[in-house]
């Protein structure tokens, strides 16, 4: 029976935008950017959930909210049925052992003035001050071996390592405190293709060995298709489609998902002209008043009247597949089966 490990309910987060107007003399009221706009997501123990989205969709904000680096404005995040989003820093500490994060850019994620060994030993000693130095070093070395790094590199600095090695060190550091849940924010995007393969294999191997649960943010659809158990597609701070891997890649329902899949470069198949969206992702466009209706309405080729007034809700189509789209809900309720 699948157990829900992390549960995100109706999450909201807005930021104040700096003055957008070019003129400096105008007294413009600061407007707000809605980064997360009513997001609901559940992650089960032992699975790999990949969240796909482009820049501006709120991925990084969601990662930060889940990890407790910021507090949401509304909504809850629960870990094993305990609400963690409003905990104090002290109460959060016990959860910090169980939830860890791997960052996007392996270079800036490591302190340039600390050796690899220091980067690994420090967190361990901080959380378990009773360990003596030698024990901590032994554990760090073991962890380095587990992620495929030659222990000789332990005394090196980040700028002396390659991109793939740095990412491995990041993963090792996240694993030092023995977490059960790992959030990875674009772990592959700064790496070469051949190194991406290595890291993907490593992540899969570690998951099998240590029974880890992954929440991976990525825009690399090829990697997602390889790695994920379930996939959620994010747009403008909301989940627009969530499904098992097979369902999402073979039968995408949401117009945005379809556009993404169509635009994703495939080595043997030429890109199609269908499912094109107009315009750009609303990147950091502040709203002085909240836009009504679906956030995709200006770009969607299938927008209908309802889309302009009502925000679509995430409605399950099958047990494994939920879509937030008026058009899809309308056509499915009409009993037609649209095969895209």
């Amino acid at each position: 029976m699948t157990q829900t490990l992390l549960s995100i309910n109706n999450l909201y987060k807005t930021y104040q935008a700096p003055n957008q107007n070019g003129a400096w003399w105008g007294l413009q009221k600061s407007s707000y950017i809605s980064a997360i706009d009513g997001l609901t997501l559940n992650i089960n123990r032992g699975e790999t959930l990949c969240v796909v989205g482009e820049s501006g969709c709120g991925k990084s904000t969601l990662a930060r909210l889940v990890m407790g680096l910021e507090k949401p404005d509304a909504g809850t995040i629960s870990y094993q049925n305990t609400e963690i989003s409003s905990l104090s820093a002290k109460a959060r500490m016990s959860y910090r052992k169980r939830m860890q994060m791997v960052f996007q850019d392996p270079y800036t994620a490591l302190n340039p003035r600390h050796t690899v060994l220091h980067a690994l030993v420090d967190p361990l000693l901080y959380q378990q001050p009773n360990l003596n130095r030698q024990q901590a070093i032994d554990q760090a070395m073991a962890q380095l071996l587990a992620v495929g790094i030659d222990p000789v590199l332990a005394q090196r600095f980040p700028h002396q390592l390659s991109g793939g090695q740095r990412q491995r060190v990041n993963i090792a550091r996240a694993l030092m405190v023995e977490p059960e849940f790992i959030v990875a924010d674009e772990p592959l995007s700064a790496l070469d293709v051949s190194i991406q393969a290595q890291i993907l294999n490593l992540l899969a191997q570690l998951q099998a060995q240590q029974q880890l649960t992954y929440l991976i943010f990525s825009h690399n659809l090829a990697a997602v298709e390889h790695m994920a158990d379930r996939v959620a597609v994010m747009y403008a701070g909301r989940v627009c489609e969530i499904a098992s891997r097979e369902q999402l890649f073979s039968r995408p329902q949401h117009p945005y998902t379809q556009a993404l899949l169509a635009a994703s470069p495939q080595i043997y198949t030429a890109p199609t002209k269908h499912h094109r969206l107009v315009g750009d992702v609303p990147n950091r466009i502040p709203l002085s008043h909240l836009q009504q209706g679906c956030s995709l309405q200006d770009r969607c080729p299938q927008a209908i009247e309802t889309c302009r007034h009502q925000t679509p809700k995430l409605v399950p189509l099958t047990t494994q597949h939920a879509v937030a789209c008026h058009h899809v809900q309308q056509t499915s309720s009409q009993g037609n089966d649209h095969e895209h």
Partner: protein
Amino acid sequence: MTELSSAPVALLSVTDLHVNFTSRWPQEPNIDVLRGVSFQLHRGERVALVGESGAGKSLLATSIIQLFDTSARIRHGSVEFEGQDLTQLKPKQLRQVRGRRIGMVFQDPMTNLNPSLTLEQQLLQCILSHRKISRAEARLVALHKLRQVHIPAPETRMRQYPHQLSAGQLQRVTIAMALALEPALIIADEPTSALDVTMQAEIISLLTHLCHNNGVTLLLISHDLSLVAHASDRCLIMYAGQIVEQGQTKSLINDAQHPYTQNLIRALPQMSQPGKTLYQIPGQMPLGHELGTQCAFANRCQHAFEDCWTQQPVTSITHDREVSCHLLNPATVAIQSAESEP
């Protein structure tokens, strides 16, 4: 597109280019980065330069126009462009070529435009520094170029600052700037790496469209083979400072001959079953100066034999493919034919 052997005079002809970094300390050796690169570009072609980080592809691009930002120097070789050898030109003459005859599109649109100038100012600066026309005329040229790259409402957009546009729009503006002086060659260095997937497709199709319409040659640099598969006519695969394979893109992808290219394709996630272990190329790309006379790929190649460790591979040229691999050396083909896997 035109075939290599029967081509008329090439637009760009790079021959045996060697570039290294001069060391700051006299006792340390110079770091060889490009070790004998040769290729040609013909008018109207779209050529992709593919390689991983450290292979030297960005350096090759900057070597062509000699816009080094480090201590890199051309040690040997020639870069013939429209009949002139760019390596022999004085800086003043080189400046005439850069921008005017060769345009460049860089990777990150957020940083390659000046944040404190409006787009209009930047476009006009670019145009007026090379052409002796009036400001009003230059403005019309700029507007025309912005329309060509599908920027809506260009008159208003021109007066905006870079931070007011999205990354996709900024990259279009960069392309407009590169096209402003109607160059013969555009070098695009990872033009879509900083963009989202949907934007990527748009920018690539824009570049393709512009090149076809205006007869501009495109040199597209990327690390993503999937991306260039449908965005280029010919493909050059770079590894450790050398071109290991070059040929027509379609045939290269369907029938790769060099082990590195084969491995590169095999390592793509699409080539493995979901959930199964991906194929990974063992080892790491060596840095140029660590190699002596040997094949750079020898330590990672599953087909390596004695010759690979002692001699530089010779480039074997067939009618549409050039491969630098000992396996294709006729003398060894007979011996190795039983072992080599396509």
